[in-house]
């Protein structure tokens, strides 16, 4: 019976086609074509774009992974298609297929190739995380990978900014709006996110109420905004354009509406904007608490005398201590 089956199988016929070579040749052509199309045609349009260095790095990483995974997908599809076309059941062919046996060389090759791919991607991913200073992700209050000129203390961040230097932008999350404070430009706070082009940006992300997440999509920056935590993320602006900022952490009733648009402008435009905004907001800037990498709004140093004067506590005029009352 086995001999009959073997004899009835086209592949087993002496002098029959070399299916493995056929599949390999079809695969290599299609895989190469797919990779070229994906890299050069689709690649430039892969999110999140190239507005910032972190975004460009993420786009490159996405394209590398696509280029590596596409041949695998093509191989599976080629094999399936080939099998369906070449080894399909013919009219009148009622014979069993040939028995299958293990093929140690193919197994070893498969394990080796897939292991190399996975391990190389792991190494690549690690390299891509380190080299672009965290790849746009929040590194926490003590970032490991810092660009030259990064300012990690409140005092350093308040040094006047000059073009060509790292620009510190403090992102303050609060229900349901991000505000942005520019410590190196007088410390004003605004709802507008405006950035100069070709500048390394240091986002110091925090919150003064619940947990938010600062996601500047086109810049490739995403950092959790936690109360009491300074979460640092870096990117370098590379082109002029608009930035969509969204909160990426469910933060209450209007979380879905917590978004705004920022923009990357030329350095002179940025300086003009900063100058005019600083003047326009001067009356409220002087009311802001001293610049700090985090804020604890439950402790307002100079609020005590006001409340004492009024005899107000708790809901009548002050903040609730963090432990009281508990959430029902």
């Amino acid at each position: 019976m086995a001999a009959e089956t073997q004899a009835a199988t086209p592949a087993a016929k002496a002098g029959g086609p070399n299916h493995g070579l056929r599949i390999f040749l079809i695969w290599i052509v299609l895989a190469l074509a797919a990779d070229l199309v994906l890299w050069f045609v689709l690649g430039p349009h892969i999110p999140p774009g190239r507005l910032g260095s972190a975004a460009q790095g993420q786009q490159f990483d996405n394209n590398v992974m696509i280029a590596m995974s596409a041949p695998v997908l093509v191989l599976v599809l080629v094999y399936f298609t080939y099998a369906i076309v070449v080894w399909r059941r013919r009219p009148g062919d009622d014979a069993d297929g040939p028995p299958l046996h293990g093929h140690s060389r193919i197994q070893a090759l498969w394990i080796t190739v897939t292991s190399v791919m996975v391990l190389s991607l792991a190494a690549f991913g690690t390299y891509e995380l380190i080299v672009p200073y965290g790849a746009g992700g929040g590194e926490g209050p003590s970032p490991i990978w810092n660009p030259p000129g990064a300012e990690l203390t409140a005092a350093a961040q308040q040094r006047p900014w000059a073009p060509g230097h790292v620009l510190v932008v403090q992102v303050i999350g609060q229900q349901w709006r991000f505000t942005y404070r520019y410590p190196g430009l007088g410390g004003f706070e605004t709802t507008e996110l405006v950035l100069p082009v070709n500048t390394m940006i240091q986002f110091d992300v925090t919150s003064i109420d619940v947990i938010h997440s600062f996601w500047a999509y086109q810049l490739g920056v995403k950092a959790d905004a936690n109360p009491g935590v300074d979460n640092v993320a870096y990117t370098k602006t590379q082109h002029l354009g608009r930035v969509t900022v969204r909160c990426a952490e469910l933060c209450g009733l209007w979380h879905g509406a917590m978004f705004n648009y920022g923009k990357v402008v030329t350095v002179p435009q940025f300086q003009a904007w900063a100058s005019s905004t600083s003047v326009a907001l001067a009356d409220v800037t002087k009311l802001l608490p001293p610049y700090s990498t985090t804020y604890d709004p439950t402790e307002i140093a100079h609020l005590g005398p006001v409340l004492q004067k009024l005899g107000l506590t708790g809901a009548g005029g002050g903040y609730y201590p963090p432990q009281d009352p508990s959430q029902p």
Partner: protein
Amino acid sequence: MSLPVRVGTLLVAFLAVVGGAIFVVIHYLLAGPPTVDFTSQAAPGQPVHIVLQEAPQTTVSDRPDWVSYFIQDPASHQWVHTTLFKVPAGSMIDVTVLGYDGCTPLRNPFWGKISGTVGNVEYVNGKPTQVLNSWGECSVAHTFSIPGIGLNVPIASPTTLAANNNLCGTSPCTSGPHTTVTFSFKAPATPGSYFWQCRIPCGLGFLDGFGGPMQTIGYMTGEMEVAG
């Protein structure tokens, strides 16, 4: 048990389940505060007048200890317990807020800055004001903020101890210490819904004051529907 009894029992149980589901949908999912319509009152080219009040409690609701906004119906002049209102697109909106609640400091003093109004100014008891310092004095009770159009108006509070200790005790308030805040802004030309909120953590009884009325439409947040 006979067949008719079993069928009857099954039918009753089925109807009970269906009735319960309908009750839940109608009572909890579809129920909500009414929308006060200002479009029918608006003459072409004329401003729309909206009168709000902030009350220290909501004795007309099942949450009597929650602070809440009320909107005055333009036709009946009755106070409506809601935070939903509808205005014509592109119209000028004149707002009067009667601030009956006591002071609480802003969590972020940045929101003491008036923005998005005509002239970036509000009038507190007739006095033009561009910024309120809630950390330096007892001056702000709540805010009326529509982030989608950049509107932020801190609502001034009674400033004295005597006033803060004698706030109106029944809502909607008709008497008691209060401030009158007025301002104007232009409604967006694009129809749609724009949420508005208070930025004072005024949810008494909730962690850091962020729950309850702060997160509930009909109390300290709502929507402005802009009709085309």
